[in-house]
């Protein structure tokens, strides 16, 4: 099995062409090791979302190289034939709002990605319930998303991001709608899950409360990243 983690080298993204061209990413370098949670912070318009979309294989970078585990997935074009399968099987997503599917109960929200990957329903649900147990929301397994609190919804969303055991999780402002206590709980869960499943997690955030918890932080400004050591404080 390939080693996990993600490495990005010289990633560029240009929108438009000619005089109206905008360089959103101007050569981003970053790497995240398996089991590590890093922060990606920067002001609005700095290129955070573009970087996240490039990593999530929903937009095409203009240049650079991306390596997932020991497989090059992008270098002068995508090297994987099916980006949908790449997103489904090897990249997990956690959004600012949980964006749970409102007409599926908690279990099926989490079980949906493995079902889409072809896992039998019973096995997918078993895997979902294991994760819900790990995230302490097993007791809400039959509830509909509208019946959950904000913190519970976010934990279910994290479970959905983890359920296919992807090597990378991209978390876009996962604590934005939560109060300090719940935000800290979510970061603790992400760290626990990163360690437990050897997952590399990139957390895009503006949240001052959680920034001190990262051991490594990437600052992005004008499409360029700068790495710095974080405080790596506890989660209390």
């Amino acid at each position, binding site marked *: 099995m390939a080693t996990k983690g993600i490495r990005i080298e010289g990633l560029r993204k240009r929108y438009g062409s000619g005089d109206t061209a905008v360089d959103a990413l101007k050569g981003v370098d970053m790497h995240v090791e398996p089991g590590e949670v890093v922060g990606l912070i920067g002001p609005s318009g700095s290129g955070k979302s573009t970087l996240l979309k490039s990593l999530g294989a929903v937009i095409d970078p203009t240049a650079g190289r991306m390596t997932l585990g020991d497989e090059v997935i992008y270098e002068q074009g995508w090297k994987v034939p099916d980006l949908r399968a790449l997103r489904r099987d090897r990249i997990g997503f956690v959004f600012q709002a949980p964006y749970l599917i409102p007409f599926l109960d908690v279990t099926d929200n989490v079980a949906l990605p493995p*079902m889409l990957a072809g896992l039998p329903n019973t096995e997918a649900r078993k895997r979902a319930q294991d994760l819900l147990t790990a995230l302490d929301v097993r007791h809400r397994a039959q509830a509909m998303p509208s019946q959950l609190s904000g913190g519970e919804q976010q934990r279910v969303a994290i479970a959905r991001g983890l359920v296919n055991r992807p090597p990378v999780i991209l978390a876009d402002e996962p604590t934005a709608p939560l109060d300090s206590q719940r935000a800290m709980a979510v970061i603790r869960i992400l760290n626990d899950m990163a360690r437990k499943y050897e997952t590399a997690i990139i957390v895009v955030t503006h949240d001052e409360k959680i920034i001190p918890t990262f051991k490594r932080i990437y600052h992005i400004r004008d499409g360029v990243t700068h790495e710095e050591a974080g405080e790596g404080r506890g989660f209390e």
Partner: protein
Amino acid sequence: MISLAGRDILHAWGKFVFTGVGLGLLIGVTLVMAGVYRGMVDDGKALLDNSGADLWVVQQDTLGPYAESSSLKDDLYRTILAMPGVARAANVTYLTMQVRQGERDVRAMVVGAAAGAPAGTPGTPPYLVAGRQFTRGHYEAVADMATGFKLGDTIRIRRNQYTVVGLTRRMVSSSGDPMVFIPLKDAQEAQFLKDNDAIWQSRRRTEANPAINRPGASGVLDAVLASQSSNNFVNAILVRLEPGADPDEVARTIYRWKRLTVYTRAQMEDILVGKLIATSARQIGMFLVILAVVSAAIVAFIIYTLTMDKIREIAVLKLIGTRNRTIAAMIMQQALALGAIGFAVGKITATFAAPLFPKYVLLVPQDSIAGFFAVMAICALASVVAIRMALRVDPAEAIGG
């Protein structure tokens, strides 16, 4: 894989059911419209069936007696009766008018038929549900149940009053008006009956004509006046053939010897369905097309709106790896479910509403089956717009910024 469409429908079943009920009422109207057309055709066929005729002998070069007026001398039936292959022949008149009963009047087709004729004579009611056939030559009537008349009721046709002595059922004109049968002589009189002033004026004019009122030839004037105040015409002669007789051959014989137009059952059916109700059928056809287009537009709008409400969910589904065909199937299944709900409601509505219509509405299973598939096809087609929109949703929309 779980059914995303089924889960979405169960989650928002109220919205689906109420939308389906609205659509169902529209489909119900469409089914009733089709039933109205079927009812018109069936009325036409009932008219032919109940006349008991194999051939219709009418005035030359007319489409009578139902689609055009036709006039024949009432003694012609005797010569037709003598022709080979003819078992029975009977005069008949048809006149659509308002028949009064007390303070109310009923639109009906007044049929003049031979009084006291043996059972099975063409033109007479083939069966009764109450009472008896009229046996007297005057002032007795047999009415269709749909007129609302009862046995013993006194009804008025022109100046004369008739007693209802029998009731029959499903005896209607091609336009669905119930029939009232009266003796032929009364019907002939009713067709051409003038008011007293008009008769008096007519006599005065005739008497003033020196060519007719000649001195020493008073018999001429009397004869002319008598012919003016009597009617010995009928609209058609209905012919029942002997068993094994070829209708076309007998028709050709009658035409050759009597120079009258003769229609067989098939030809008369063509006239009724192809000519008499053709315009109405086209009108109904136009309504059906409009209703189908409106239904399609409504389904398309509803499914489009429901899909628009799920744009973010669709983006998330695509981001986590859902295939386009899974999303398309979800939308199409919802459209088909909506159509199925709508059709069920429409069918129930049409079934219960049909008897309330003043004209006969005939709901046939073939129309329901065709309607079901048409609704499904319309719903599938209507979902295409929403599917196209859903497939264009960028999974990047699920990621902020």
